[in-house]
Each structure stands twice: as structure tokens, then as C-alpha cells.
């Protein structure tokens, strides 16, 4: 999948969990499903009882009604009417059962869906990145839909099938135990063989799912990479990759279907064997007076009750496979403990006010990777303005992620206002410390909606004010629809610089006590950048501000500069001091000066 290292913290696959355990766990999570289940099952029994009406009616007609040569018409009419009433009754029971079942399953699946969705957001960024976005989405969409499909159809079938087998067997025993044994003797080998077929199918469907995943990934490449594919004319290559994936998926599906196709009709043959056996043996039994003609004929009808459950069993297994896989995948998400967990109500609430930060011998490496940060020890006093600089890949973003607790250090401690970050309640942490990440993601909506995301309760006036404070009012005026300008998905209808401006405004509106900018203005033109920097300086006075930037203008104005090199903090101090020392910073600054000045 992705880079080796990340897999270690991936989402649980639950592959080793048995189907039964999976479903059990699933049911444990959904009280909606369990509630009233007993009543639904009772209705199911009534509904399936409807299935044996016909054999009974046939038997009664032949044995009682037709006895003695001339049919007893009034008796037959009565019997038929009683049976018809029973049919209506059982159909009604089936209706009520269906509705109850649909309600229960859909409600429980909706709960599960929302829970899964929420949990994805609770997982750490590393865990989230361990899986393709598309796969993550399908855990709360397609996979649940699979379960829903199954429940709307297969789940019912299973209930009905078991009930049917049961009532049919009971009635058979009443009529003749010998024939019952015969019927079971015919079907038992099939029932024993079913799990074997199921395993075969299960393997085939595992392949199908893998191929489907590959296909989706290939397809999504053609959509998300549209611009690059065009710029490099790699349409053919992409099309070939997609065709290969689509065709592999199709072959896997056909293969699985072929297995089903061969297994499915086996039941017909077994049923025919049973029927032939019933005729042969039944006639003998009839001769010795152990069974009536009506009972014998009723048996023939009862065998059909065996056919459909067993036939649908293979069919249902098909869907059940998908459903269980769906359960596994959604439960996989829910059961993956967030490795960066919210202490919740036990956690500390940070009081409002300027924030101080300290790193105490912090080490970090991405799962399976080499150390990215080593022995980081530093202190950031409240109200200070700190710049973080360093070569690309030196660990600046990683440092920022640790400070905002998107990840936890491998060893060492990060503390804010003296509290270990791990003890601080998320609600408090996210309110007080806000980072503007390197690429400004925007949601599909208007500018206003996106900025308001920083503070959902903000009024339009507040938003306007914030824009003015940031010195962005002019820019806003220049847009065709001002705050109502649609930003497009991922904000792609804005220019890269504009996108960053919105992301910045959004974080600014959130009004945090510590604002962390990770190259938040890297695509903004210098004039605007300087203007924003000024504005921020004015309004963040009294707060802590940390900015990571390759444009060293930020560093020049900072109270303190932290210089990272290959994962270590190599220098720290005010700009004026650092430039005079020989070292990484002086080199960086020299090239910056030559780059920025004419």
C-alpha cells in the first residue's frame, strides 16, 4: 500500500476474526438492532409457518376429502378456507416482521455508519494516511451498503430458511419418520459440503474485493491526477493501467460467479434424488399401511421447502460473505484505538491566556522509519514570536505536528503551560492551539462558509472584520462575489495564494492563543505576505505565534529563531545574534538575502 513505515499503525483488518465473532461484535455495538429482536423472530416463526400450509392442505384434501372415492366437498371447502385464512395471517406476520427488521437494521447501520465516520476523524493522521482515502470512505459507505443489501434480502432469507427447514422437518416427522430420515440422508451431505463451498467462495470473493480496491485506486488516479496526466500526456499509460485493473476485477467476479453457478443447482439434483427416494420408499411404506397417500404426496411438497432454503443458502452465502467483510471493515475502523487519544473529561482544561510550550528531550520517527527528530529540548515562553527554519526535510512540519498533537512523540514530552500535551482535553487543545497546515484545504462552498469553519458561531460582520484586520479587505472586494464566491472542491476555483489567504483567515477567526503557521503564506505574493505579517503581528500581540517559513523575512522579525537541521535543533536565538554566528542559519540567511534582494 503506502510506504512501509506507515503500515505499522494501520487500521485493523480483523481478518482473523471469525464471521460469527464479527457479527456478534457488530450486534453488540448496535442496540437498535437487538431491541425488539425477539418479537421480530416470533413473527418470523409465524411467517414461516405459512410455508407448510400447502402440504397440509394437500394431505388433508387427499386423505380426508377424497377418501372413499367421491370427494367430500364441504370438508375440502372448509379446509381450504381455513388454510386461506392462515395464508393471509402469515402474510400479515411477514409484513410486520419485514418492516420491523428493516427499521432495526437500517437504524443500527446508520448508527454504525456515523460512528465509523466519527472514528475515522478520531484516528491520528498517521493512521488515516495508512489507507487510501477512497478505501477509508468505502468503509462508511459501500461496506455499510453491502450489509444493508444483505439485511434487506439475505438476512431475511436466513431467518426464513432456518424456520422453513425446522417446520418442514417437524411436519415430516408427524407424517413418517422413515421418510424424514430418507430426506435428511439425501440433504445432509449437501449441508456438510456447504461450508466447503463457502470457503471456496470466500476465497474467490476476497480476490474480488482486492481487485475492486485496485480498480478504484486506478480510477481515482485518473480523476485526481487529471492535470498532471494531461500535462505529461500519460493518458494512454493511465488508460492501460485502468483497463488492466477493471479487467482483472471482472475476471475475478466471473470466477466467483462460476463457482456459485455450479454450487447452486446441486440442490435441485439432491432434491430430485429425495423425491425419487420418497416415491420408491413411500410406496413400500404405503403397501405396509404405515403412511397414507395424502401424507406421501404431502412429502413431495415438503421437499420443495428444503430446496429453496438450501438453494438460497449458497446465494445468501454469496451476499453474506460481502456483508461479513463489510462488518469486518467497519468494525476494523471502530476497533482501531486512536493512538493519539483524547483524555476526554479526565483531561486538563487549559485556561485562556498566552501559552508557553516546552519540548523535553523529544524524539520522533515515523512508524518503521528512521528518526526524524532527535533530542529536541526547547522552551517557548508565552507571548513570544518564534520562527522555525531549516532545510527541506529537516523536520519542521513534524515538529509542528507534535506541538499540535497530531502525533505523539516516540519519547520525551511536549508540555503546554506546564501540562503534558497528552493530558490536555482535545476540545480545549484545539481551541487554544491552531495550526495552518502547509496546503490549505478548503471545503466545497463559499468563501464565507470556509472562513466560518474556524468559528461556527461567527456572524458575517465578524468575518468581515477579521478580513479587515488581516488586511485582506481589498482583496475580498476585488472578487466577483466577495464573501459569496464559491471556492470549488478542495478550493480549486481559487488561485493557490488565495486559497492560503482563506485558510489563514479561517484559523485567525478561530482566535487561538497559539497560532502555528506552517508555510501558510508560501504561495502568497511578497507584498501581501508582508502586509499580512504586519497585521498578524498587531493582532497577535499578547499571544504566542510560531511560524515555519522558507522566506526568512519572518525570521528576521521574530523574537527567537529555532534552526532545525537533519532532525536536530542546532541553533536558537534572535535573528540578529544568529546571523553573526557561523552555522546553518547564517548560510540559510545568506542565500535568502541573495535570493530576495536585487
Amino acid at each position, binding site marked *: 500500500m503506502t510506504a512501509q513505515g506507515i503500515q505499522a499503525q494501520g487500521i485493523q483488518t480483523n481478518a482473523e476474526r471469525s464471521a460469527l465473532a464479527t457479527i456478534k461484535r457488530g450486534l453488540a455495538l448496535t442496540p437498535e438492532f437487538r431491541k425488539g429482536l425477539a418479537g421480530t423472530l416470533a413473527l418470523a416463526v409465524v411467517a414461516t409457518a405459512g410455508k407448510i400450509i400447502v402440504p397440509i392442505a394437500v394431505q388433508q384434501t387427499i386423505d380426508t376429502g377424497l377418501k372413499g372415492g367421491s370427494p367430500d366437498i364441504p370438508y375440502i371447502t372448509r379446509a381450504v378456507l381455513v388454510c386461506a385464512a392462515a395464508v393471509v395471517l402469515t402474510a400479515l406476520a411477514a409484513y410486520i416482521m419485514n418492516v420491523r427488521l428493516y427499521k432495526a437494521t437500517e437504524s443500527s447501520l446508520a448508527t454504525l455508519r456515523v460512528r465509523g465516520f466519527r472514528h475515522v476523524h478520531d484516528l491520528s493522521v498517521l493512521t488515516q494516511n495508512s489507507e487510501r482515502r477512497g478505501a477509508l470512505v468505502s468503509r462508511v459507505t459501500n461496506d455499510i451498503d453491502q450489509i444493508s443489501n444483505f439485511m434487506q434480502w439475505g438476512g431475511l432469507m436466513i431467518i426464513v430458511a432456518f424456520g422453513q427447514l425446522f417446520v418442514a422437518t417437524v411436519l415430516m416427522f408427524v407424517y413418517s419418520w422413515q421418510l424424514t430420515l430418507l430426506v435428511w440422508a439425501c440433504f445432509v451431505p449437501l449441508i456438510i459440503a456447504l461450508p466447503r463451498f463457502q470457503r471456496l467462495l470466500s476465497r474467490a470473493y476476497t480476490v474480488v474485493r482486492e481487485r475492486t480496491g485496485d480498480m478504484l485506486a486506478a480510477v481515482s488516479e485518473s480523476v485526481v491526477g487529471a492535470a498532471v496526466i494531461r500535462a505529461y500526456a500519460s493518458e494512454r499509460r493511465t488508460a492501460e493501467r485502468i483497463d488492466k485493473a477493471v479487467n482483472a476485477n471482472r475476471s475475478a467476479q466471473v470466477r466467483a460467479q462460476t463457482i456459485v453457478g455450479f454450487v447452486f443447482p446441486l440442490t435441485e439434483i439432491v432434491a430430485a434424488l429425495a423425491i425419487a427416494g420418497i416415491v420408491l420408499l413411500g410406496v413400500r411404506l404405503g403397501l405396509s399401511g404405515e403412511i397414507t397417500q395424502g401424507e406421501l404426496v404431502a412429502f413431495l411438497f415438503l421437499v420443495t421447502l428444503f430446496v429453496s432454503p438450501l438453494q438460497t443458502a449458497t446465494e445468501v452465502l454469496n451476499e453474506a460473505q460481502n456483508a461479513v467483510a463489510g462488518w469486518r471493515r467497519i468494525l476494523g475502523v471502530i476497533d482501531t484505538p486512536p493512538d493519539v487519544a483524547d483524555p476526554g473529561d479526565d483531561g486538563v482544561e487549559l485556561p485562556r491566556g498566552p501559552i508557553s510550550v516546552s519540548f523535553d528531550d523529544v524524539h520522533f520517527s515515523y512508524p518503521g522509519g528512521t528518526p526524524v527528530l532527535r533530542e529536541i529540548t526547547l522552551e517557548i515562553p508565552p507571548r513570544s514570536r518564534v520562527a522555525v527554519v531549516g532545510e527541506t526535510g529537516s523536520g519542521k512540519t513534524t515538529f509542528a505536528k507534535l506541538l499540535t498533537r497530531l502525533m505523539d512523540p516516540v519519547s520525551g514530552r511536549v508540555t503546554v503551560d506546564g501540562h503534558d500535551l497528552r493530558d490536555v482535553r482535545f476540545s480545549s487543545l484545539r481551541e487554544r492551539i491552531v495550526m495552518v497546515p502547509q496546503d490549505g484545504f478548503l471545503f466545497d462552498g463559499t468563501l464565507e462558509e470556509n472562513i466560518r469553519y474556524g468559528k461556527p458561531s461567527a456572524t458575517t460582520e465578524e468575518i468581515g472584520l477579521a478580513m479587515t484586520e488581516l488586511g485582506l479587505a481589498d482583496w475580498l472586494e476585488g472578487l466577483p462575489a466577495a464573501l459569496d464566491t464559491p471556492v470549488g472542491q478542495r478550493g480549486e476555483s481559487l488561485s493557490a495564494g488565495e486559497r492560503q489567504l482563506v485558510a489563514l483567515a479561517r484559523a485567525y477567526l478561530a482566535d487561538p492563543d497559539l497560532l502555528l503557521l506552517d508555510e501558510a503564506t508560501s504561495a502568497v*505574493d511578497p507584498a501581501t505576505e508582508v502586509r499580512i505579517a504586519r497585521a498578524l503581528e498587531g493582532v497577535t500581540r499578547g499571544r504566542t505565534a510560531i511560524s515555519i517559513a522558507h522566506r526568512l523575512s519572518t525570521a528576521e522579525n521574530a523574537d527567537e529563531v529555532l534552526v532545525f537541521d537533519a532532525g536536530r535543533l542546532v541553533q536558537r536565538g534572535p535573528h540578529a545574534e544568529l546571523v553573526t554566528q557561523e552555522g546553518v542559519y547564517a548560510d540559510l540567511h545568506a542565500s535568502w538575502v541573495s535570493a530576495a534582494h536585487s
Partner: protein
Amino acid sequence: MATKVTSAVMRQGLRVLGVAVRTEKAVFTLAVLASAVYGGMTVASAWALGWATQYVVQPAFAQGDVASGAMWTGTFLILGAALLKAFGVAGRRILAGVIQYRMQARSRRDVTKQYLRLPLSWHHQHPTGQLLSNASADAEAAWAPLAPLPMAVGVIVMLVTAAVAMLFTDLVLALVGFLIFPAIAVLNLIYQRKLSPLATRAQQLRAEVSEIAHESFDGALVVKTLGREELETDRFRRRAHELRDANIAVGRVRGLFDPLLEALPTIGVLAVLAVGAMRLSGGSIDSGDLVQVAYLFTLLAFPIRALGWVLAELPRSVVGWQRVQAVLDATGSMEYGRASAGSTTPAALEVSGVSYAYGEAEVLHDVTFDVPAGRTVALVGPTGSGKSTLVQLLVRLVDPDAGQVLLDGVDLRELAYGGIAESVALVPQQTFLFDDSVRGNIALGLDAADEDVWAALRLAQAEGFVARLADGLDTRVGERGASLSGGQRQRLALARAVVRRPRLLILDDATSSVDPQVEAKILYGLRDAAEASTVVVVAYRMATIALADEVVYLDHGRIVDRGTHDELLLRCAGYRNLVTAYEREEAERAAMELPVEEEGVSA
């Protein structure tokens, strides 16, 4: 109104099926044949049972004796019918699967071909989530009714055979059948009409739920950094609950009609028994006939519902098909000419009178400039001035609304497919890496030797960190390059461009995430290596601009001025303001610090 809509759905649905039938004629014919065997044999098995009752069971109970000949014939009939039926079932299922999956795969291939063919502007107008579900869920839904279709055809064969068989058995019993079967058909029709709008809605909601999840997970980092998990969950929950209610509404209809459809044949059997008993007393039929007809009804109870399944799948299918078709019908693909751009010398670029609008809003107005072969031109302009838009036109990601872009004097639109990519390489502002290896991301289908890849990496100052990666060139970079730092991603994108030795290299702010030292190295490397190419570079940094022979200053989509850096500094206020921002800032600060210190002293 509602009826109208659904009968339209019905017609459309049948048309969709027609498309599949025409495309897969041979397989479909075989599948229907197999299904007909299945249908015929279902009736035959009832007949065999009736025969056995009449000639084996009946005499045994009546006379206390059976002819073993009849017994074996009966057994043979029963088993023979079952065997043929099993054969029919297997054939029908496998072939139906073949058709269904082939059609699905075909739709998927066509849809993605279309994604690759349609211009970028089309992509801009369609959400990613929607496009993904067009190719997956919708293609799936469109052909879903194909699975039960041959069976449904088989069922029709079955019904006809059954009707004929009953006619031969007894006219009155046949009449019962003729009352019940149409009743089932009508019920099926009502079922479909009720279900159709509900199922359509549920399908649409599924797509919407998926779109929300896509976007929300895509923006997971923002959600996290602002602590908006609850807000997102609310957004998702609302839609998920709508979907739940829609599914329950579907369930209500199904829950009602399924038992009804099952009860009808049962009622039929009972009617047969009542009527049959009377006919029996009149001597017009024998008990074998009665058992046969009753058994037939029992056998039909289940398969007859296959008709219902096809009908139930139709609305979903129609929605899926329409969504797929919308993509396939989308027009506005790029046309390519025949001209070749092949040459090894640096390319000359000419932009003349170009305008471009996103929808209504024109963002480039009458832009004209040229880049002589071998020269380097810097494109400078404030945020949102239209630089990236212009750059997209230069590599023909989009076509201008007016004016022309000429490469070596040839309009880009006249170049053959692939011609532009052969000569021009763009490093876009927004880095995009595929979930592939480092090598795959750089070569991107190009047959590049490892040395060339390494050389490109060296030029992009990426050699060092790639060499340190666990698997070197074979290291996978994760989705969108998630396992690399911002600057590392950018440098791979740069290497991707230079490995092609383009005649025209276009850099759109391609070093923004790179520190100045590395940037300087890259730029010097490029200048030395780029002797064979013309360069257009979007940049703010002075060092980059200083490398350019000429600067084009763009503001609000217009070219305000062009000339050398020094010329523009002198005469273009906007330009001066932009590129000297840092210097002025520094100067102002220096000026401000003095009074502050004085204040401190005096206080």
C-alpha cells in the same frame, strides 16, 4: 404524475437492458436458452411428479401393488428433469454473470476513457466524489438487473409452458391459473411503481453520503487542527439519517409486496385444490392431474419473483445508467491536429491576444508576449493575477477563449496528440504525486534509464534524500506523496519535468516549499543544464527573477509591462512594490526601531 414518471423509468430501464442485450447478443442468447431449459424443466418436473403420482403412487394405494416398470420410469423422469434443470440453472447463472460483469467493466472503461479525454475545465466542474461513484457504484447499479434478467426470461418461458400444460390437463384448472398469473403480474407492476421513486431517492442519497465522506476525509487535517470533528459528524449524520429513512421507506414497500407476491401462488394452490376436488368428483381429472397442477403452483411461487427482482432493480439501474451516460455524453473534448513539434532545439513560444474565462468571469484579457528560443522569461504578478491560468494555456491543459498560443510558430491546437508533452514540461504550482514508486512518479510512462532518473533527481536537488529512502527509487511515496515533506514532493515534481529534457520548461512557483539554499542550487543547475531549453518561470523571489532575460508583469489578468528586471524596477510601480516588499519592510523596521529605542531611553 408519479405514475408517468415511473412508467418512463420502466421504459428507460427496458431500454438500458436492450443495450446490454444487443452488446452481448451471443452470450445473452445462450443465457436465455439455458434459462428456457430451466423454465421448461421446472414445469416438466411437476409433470413428472404428477405422472409418478398417477401411475406409481395411486395404483400402489388403490391396488396394493406397483409395476416395477412404472416405478423406474417415474424415477427416471424425475431425475432426468432435475438434471436438465440443474444444467439450465448453472448455465443461466454463469452466463448472466458474464454479461453483467462484462457490461460493468465496459462502462467503467468507457467512463474512465472519457475522464482522460475530457478537458480539465470539465473536471473542474465535477466533484471528485461524483466522478468516482460514476465509475464504480453507478456502473454497478446500471447493470445490476442483468443478473436476474435471463432468469426472468426463463420464468416467462416457464409461465407459458405451465399455461399450456394446464390447458392440456384441465380447462377449468387452467382458468384458475389464468386468473392467478395475471394477478401476480399486475401486483408486480404496482410493486415496481411504488418502489421506483423511493429506490431512486435512496440511490441518490447513497451518492451524497459518499460525497460528504470523501470531502470530509480529504480535509481531515483541517478538521483536526480546528477540532471540528463534531461539526463534520453532524453534517454526515444528517445525510446518513436521510438515507436511513429512505431505505426504510423502500423496506416498507418491499416488506408489503414480497409476502403478497408469495401468498398469491399459495392461494392459487388452495383454489386448485378446491376446484380440483370438484372436478375430480365429476371425473374430468384424476388425482395425478391435481397433484401436478398444485405442485406446479408451488414450484412457480419462488421463481416468479425473479420478475419482481428485475423490476425492483430497474429504477436504481436507470439512475446509475443516466449518471454514467451523462459522462459519456459530455462533449468538449480536445481536438488534436497533425502537426509535429519534433525538434531538439529550444522552442520559441508566442502568446497572442489570449483571453480566458472561468465560466463568466474572464481572468485573462488579451495577453500577448513572446519568449524567443533559448530565453528565460519570468512571469510575475500578485496573488490571483492569472499566472497559473496562463501557464495552463501554455501546455494546453485548457484552450483559450480567444487568441492563440504558438509553439515554434504552430498553434498548439494543430499539434498532434502527445506533441506538446514531448516538447513542453510543466511543473505545476500544486504538486501531485501518484501512489506509486519514486521512479514511477518521475518516469510517468516514459522509458527512462535509471541514470537519467538519477541525473534528473540530482538537478532537482533530490538525489540525497531519495538515496536515503529505504528502497531508493522503488520507495512508494503514498497517496499524494503523503510520506514526504512538502519540499521533497516539490523536488520530485521538478525531476519529473527535467528528466524529459523538454524544449520548453515551465515552472509555476515550483520552488515555494524549498529553502533558499536548495532553491539556489536548483536554479543554477537548471541554468547550466537548460541551455537546450526555453524557460518560463513564475516566481516572486529575486534570485529566480534575476536569472530571467526578461520579466513579464501580470496584474488582474493583463500584461502591465514587460522588460528586464531593472527596467521594470524603474518604470513599473506595481512590480517594484511587489518584488521589493521584503527590502522595504526591512528598511521600515530599521527606521522604526530607532525611535522605539529612543523612547525606551527617554522613559
